[in-house]
């Protein structure tokens, strides 16, 4: 298996070209995201065939594979491939969207509230498709991204507040592993405990067990009413966080989203029309200077402003978020903001601030422990990012060996191992 120490160079395309030819897959030398080489399998069979052939050849001609959709999640899932696309063969999952299903929708059952779609389907297209039936697809991540990319990245966006992580809405999946096997896990039902949940393992795995081909999702009813509200600007991020915590603590307000960006509290309300109006009235008693905006991409854009792939985001329990925010503000200056969810709170740190501090990691995405450099109030409340030891590390290693024995889909630094 390839080790993290292997340098990323330029992919030797001759053996890749031969494998693509044998598998009947179109290859473009520089047509992929960032100008990297890309294979465009037109069928799932040819995709599996190509992976199997490359796995066989990998001892003689190592190759690194990256499933890609629109490329929108590449920086999240595979920063190595994002930085050096010439060193990887991209597998275009969008190529599987043929004439029969150009949108990628395999099955939308409005009466059952479920959607099954190809991984290469654009999230915005799927969102529009289910909106016609009165449903919404979570996560509501806007911009260019595909279903497979979002699932692989494990991102949940602003929807996490009210609906939980995206993986909670994943009902089942079809995927191809690193040996080229076509696998299935879960189903298309809203409730199902048949067999081990391999699909849960793939959600957030950044593609290291092979490409997701198709996924089934539970849909939420589209809300009758939505309001996106912001507060006036507070003196500090910590002061804004205190307001946000008061909103979270009020069981009579059913907020659907809650975060602080640039010292402004952002609140999303949604649900039955009269209920949203009642919640807004209660909110007005807690928050001064409420302003209403158009919901949708606008709120998400503010939310994402502190949530970039290279941003530093520290997680803690909500009860500690005020002191954590204060401590960081004192030591680093103004923060990007914070996200307050029912069971977890996160502080967003501007990348330039933490990267300037010698003891801080450039990114928590790299799973570097930050404990040693953290002020005391923060130190005890930080969730450690130290690599897991013992059984967890062994389990992870064996999982990778089982599903990607040739190391085709592996990436440096993920998952963290001791």
């Amino acid at each position: 298996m390839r080790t993290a120490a292997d340098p990323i160079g330029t992919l030797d395309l001759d053996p890749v070209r031969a494998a693509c030819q044998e598998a009947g897959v179109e290859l473009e030398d520089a047509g992929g995201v960032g100008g990297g080489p890309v294979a465009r399998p037109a069928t799932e069979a040819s995709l599996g065939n190509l992976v199997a052939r490359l796995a066989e050849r990998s001892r003689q001609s190592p190759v690194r594979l990256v499933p890609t959709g629109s490329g929108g999640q590449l920086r999240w899932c595979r920063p190595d491939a994002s930085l050096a696309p010439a060193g990887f063969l991209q597998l275009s999952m969008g190529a599987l969207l043929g004439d029969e299903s150009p949108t990628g929708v395999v099955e939308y059952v409005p009466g059952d509230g479920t959607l099954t779609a190809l991984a290469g389907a654009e999230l915005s297209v799927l969102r529009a498709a289910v909106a016609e039936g009165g449903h919404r697809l979570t996560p509501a991540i806007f911009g260019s991204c595909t279903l497979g990319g979002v699932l692989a990245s494990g991102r949940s966006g602003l929807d996490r507040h009210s609906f939980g992580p995206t993986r909670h809405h994943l009902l089942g999946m079809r995927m191809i592993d690193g040996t080229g096997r076509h696998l299935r896990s879960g189903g298309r039902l809203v409730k199902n405990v048949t067999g081990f949940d391999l699909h849960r393992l793939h959600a957030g795995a950044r593609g290291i067990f092979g490409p997701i081909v198709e996924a089934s999702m539970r849909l939420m009813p589209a809300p009758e009413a939505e309001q996106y509200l912001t507060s006036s600007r507070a003196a500090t991020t910590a002061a804004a966080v205190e307001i946000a915590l008061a909103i979270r603590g009020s069981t009579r307000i059913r907020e659907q989203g809650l975060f602080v960006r640039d010292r402004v509290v952002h609140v999303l309300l949604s649900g039955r029309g009269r209920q949203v109006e009642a919640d807004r009235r209660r909110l007005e008693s807690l928050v001064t200077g409420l302003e209403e905006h158009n919901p949708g991409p606008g709120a998400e854009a503010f939310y994402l402003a502190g949530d970039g792939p290279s941003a530093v985001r520290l997680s803690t329990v909500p009860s500690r978020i005020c002191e954590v925010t204060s401590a960081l503000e004192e030591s680093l200056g103004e923060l990007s903001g914070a996200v307050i969810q029912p069971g977890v709170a996160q502080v967003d740190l501007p990348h330039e601030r933490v990267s300037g501090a010698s003891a801080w990691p450039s990114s928590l995405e790299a799973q570097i422990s930050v404990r040693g450099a953290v002020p005391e109030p923060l130190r005890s409340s930080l969730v450690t990012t130290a690599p897991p030891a013992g059984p967890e590390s062994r389990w992870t290693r064996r999982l990778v060996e089982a599903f990607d024995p040739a190391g085709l889909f592996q990436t440096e630094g993920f998952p963290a191992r001791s």
Partner: protein
Amino acid sequence: MGSDSKQLSRRHLAELERIVGKKGVRADATARSAYESDAFMLQRASAEVIVLPRTTAEAAAAVKVLRDAGLVVVPRGAGTGLSGGARPVENGAIVGTARMRDVLEVNAEDRYARVQAGVVNVHLTAACADAGLFYGPDPSSQTACTIGGNVGNNSGGPHGFKYGSTNRHVLGLTMVDSRGEVIQLGGPGAAGDGDLDLLGPVVGSEGMLGLVTEVTVQLLPRPEKVETLLCLFESLDACCDAVSEMIARRLEPSAIEILDRLTIEAVEASVLRAGYPDNAEAVMLVEVEGGDEEVDATSADVVEVARAFGAFDTRQTTDPAERKRLWAGRKGAFGAMGRIAPDLYVADVVAPRTRLREIVTAATIACRERNLKLANVFHAGDGNLHPNISYDRRDADEVRRVLEAGRIIMEACVDAGGSLTGEHGIGLEKQDEMCLVFSDDDLAAMDQLRSAFDPDAFWNPGKMLPVRGCREIHTRPLPANAPAAEGAS
């Protein structure tokens, strides 16, 4: 400790006693008999020893001794499982959580609780009630089943319609692996979105990946208003169709349950009498939760749909005592059916919610053709059906007919795009039927996942995954009464 154990050495027994105390080691015939099955009574086996630790440290130390003794281990909660998942492996060991009953922490501010695996489901909700919080999953057996058992089966319950099954509520786990090492997965305050999700496969793994000793779960704030509705129908079909329409209209109650006439009669004849009327062929029990305005609007929509589909009466209540009485009937329905026959086969299948009526009809026909008594009580909102077949396990022919009907119901569900189990698990009962849903490659991948966590097949071997290949199962099915071969009574 009485000991009729035949294989475990005195040294190993003494070592186990030293670790967990004399009360925590049972190897006598009486105890072994009591642990011969879970609530799936059709298959039994005798464990060599039952070990009942009090803490994670004791459990880890006991696992090392059992491993040294060459025994495999079946983890066990309260033994309320309905698929044979907690049945012992012949001459193996059981490690039970019956003495791990402490609620370790209730954190009201951060809305989570940390409990030992043996805490009874309903005790957790009781423990956090004063803080205005509750635990979402509420299986019908919640007065007996444990949180650890719920993790093993990814249990749901009536309110799973809104709150989801156990996997949506587990924030972290403490586990013991097959080497006796302790590991923490997840925990409060960890988002974990961009991490490998090892919790995901563990929840619902039927005790095959390790021994769960402590669980951290999220708690939910009590809703501002709760209303329970009872809708009465002259036809079970119409009741099913009304549920399908409610789903199609995207209504969001917290629970939608259906009870048919035989179930109503059994409940009303029992001590759990809920006041269900005797003139209905089916009742739909619906709960609506949330803010005042939200509850009022949703309840009005539910009543409108029910009446449009033929409900001849509807009742609504927000009175806690009345609500509790209505739910006691539903939750006690399985127990009440003991009045019909000595044994109950509780099927657990899932159908797409657009096809509820079709599967209920298939179950009715399968049972009628085999002269079996069928009662339906199920989580209609989730499409999770529980056709309950009453029988007497002393009657071998009736047992054969029950299993045959069970298989036909499963096949009908799978053919309709449904699944084998919604909350009871595969266990021993449905191993061969896994081939109705998955290919040999799928099952091999699941076995690889199991091996990654437990390479020695130390935990609960021989469950969930078919022992034979799918091709063999499809071409040469075993006789219906054959699965009881190993250690069967």
